[in-house]
């Protein structure tokens, strides 16, 4: 059995509709946030969980972390049903919510950590060594005496991560951890997560909208939409499936007169040259390049790298999300 087992997970929310004229009671509507989602995750895996807003990502994380009780299905994490044995379960997990803080706003972060030590009943020696390790890995030494409210967004995220890992959880949930961070902070955060995963085999599940997070960290990605799991596998496989549009920019010495392109290639003449977009499945890149060379002397050519965001957008569109 895998570390996390999720079978036919269901969760409904009752949403009250807006007040309509002539009716005393507001109508209720049942929204199926999750419709029979199943998956399993092994120990030490780094899984990305993506999907458009409202797909049910946060709901899944909230159920897995014991905050919400589902309406159907089975979930076990390390053999424990999260919402039935909440306290036993949450001892082993760490959760970082991107937009809400777990630390105390107005006091130095070291005070927050010492309170967390008491909450989790971490033995003093263990606490000290772990704190030392985390503060040096997350570059927090200088900030320990600073109140949380005075930290920048990136510093705060690092402080939150430290707080959620003090008790050495075996499983870490990250809800949009890099939201609003600058490039340097993002890279540092990703390096740290990789290190934590390598060093302790911590299972990490992260939800994000930043495809670079997934590319950098996750060997496996799950796509959720309309409360259903739509894809589960390697990121590369996902991308190949939706790698339908590629862009080429080309410039000729003189105006190319006999450029003939097969159907399905979009051609756009601009001041800077010609912009082409094509589907590599219909027209192999080598063939296109041959055609382009026949048309004249090429002075500049750029093959734009595949843009993951565009691909994901194309996928969401195709799946009607």
């Amino acid at each position, binding site marked *: 059995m895998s570390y996390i087992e999720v079978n036919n997970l269901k969760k409904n929310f009752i949403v009250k509709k807006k007040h309509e004229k002539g009716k005393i009671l507001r109508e209720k509507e049942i929204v199926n946030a999750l419709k029979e989602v199943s998956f399993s995750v092994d120990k030490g895996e780094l899984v990305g969980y993506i999907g458009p807003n409202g797909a049910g990502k946060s709901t899944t994380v909230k159920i897995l972390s014991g905050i919400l009780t589902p309406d159907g299905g089975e979930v076990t994490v390390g053999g424990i049903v999260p919402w039935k044995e909440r306290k036993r379960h949450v001892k082993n997990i760490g959760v970082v919510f991107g937009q809400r803080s777990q630390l105390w706003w107005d006091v130095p972060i070291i*005070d927050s950590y010492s309170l967390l030590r*008491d*909450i989790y009943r971490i033995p003093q020696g263990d606490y000290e060594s772990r704190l030392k390790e985390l503060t040096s890995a997350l570059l927090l030494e200088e900030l320990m005496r600073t109140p949380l409210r005075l930290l920048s967004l990136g510093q705060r995220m690092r402080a939150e991560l430290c707080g959620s890992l003090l008790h050495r959880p075996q499983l870490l949930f990250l809800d949009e951890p890099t939201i609003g961070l600058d490039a340097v902070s993002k890279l540092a955060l990703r390096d740290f997560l990789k290190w934590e995963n390598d060093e302790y085999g911590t299972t990490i599940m992260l939800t994000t909208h930043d495809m670079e997070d997934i590319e950098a960290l996750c060997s496996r990605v799950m796509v959720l939409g309309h409360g259903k799991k739509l894809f589960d596998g390697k990121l590369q496989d996902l991308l190949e499936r939706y790698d339908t549009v590629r862009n080429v920019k080309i410039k000729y010495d003189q105006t190319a007169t006999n450029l003939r392109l097969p159907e399905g290639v979009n051609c756009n003449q601009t001041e800077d040259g010609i912009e082409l977009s094509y589907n590599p499945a219909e027209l192999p890149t080598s063939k296109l390049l041959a055609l382009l060379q026949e048309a004249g002397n090429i002075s500049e050519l750029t093959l734009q790298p595949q843009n993951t965001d565009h691909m994901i957008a194309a996928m969401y569109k195709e799946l009607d999300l």
Partner: protein
Amino acid sequence: MNTLKLYIKSIGILLKSHLQYPSSFFMQTLAQLVMEGGEMMVVILIVDRFESLKGWSGGNLYFFFGIMSVSFYLTEMFGRGITGDFPSMIRTGRLDTFLVRPRGVLTQVLCGGTDPRRITCIAVGVAALIMGSNFSNIVWNPLKVLVLVESIAMSCLLILGLFMIEAIFCIFSVKSVELVNAITYGGRSACQYPIDIYPLPLRALFTVIAPFALTMHVPASWILDKPLYGWPSWTAFVTPLSGALVFAVMTVLFHLGIRHYRSTGS
């Protein structure tokens, strides 16, 4: 024991947070003094005008007022997580962070809020108790002190329990329900006077539903050597326990409510 240590440490940290803004803190503490002092003035004016109320002397009235003030504001000071901050804990998702920690939810809610500004209100209440005791010529003995302490402690639990009704509604509706204020703040205003000045329906309300009469008025009458509304004197020791009962029932309901917690989006 461990839980108590955690509570004291949490409150210490919150106190530190409050003192991050010292001028605001002291101004508000002063404002509380003016507010509660005003309430006290009302009682003093009534006593000045009427001398006695349905057989209760001025000193007796101060004593009743004092018990209510001390109990109510002790509860607001140490139970702020329930009496004031709970709706915002739900709205901002702080409750989610409590749920992912291996401690009781109610413990963490109580560890999550304190209102030290109420200290001046408590001081006014203590002053009223001392005045009441002097004017009523109470002869204190260990048993009377015990009953007073019991009465205040149980009243605190009762008030906390009543505020929990609001918290439970809040779990379902996200917003707070003002109706419950009728028995919390309303109860405070009404029950700072002896219960027998009120008509029967109000007396029933504050004996059966929100039993301030049982946690405060019965033991207070006993301390003042007054007849206990026709009840035997041992009831002065027993009836205050209804406060603990209300609290226990509300704690159970609160945890049932948490099971149906829906969380807010992120």
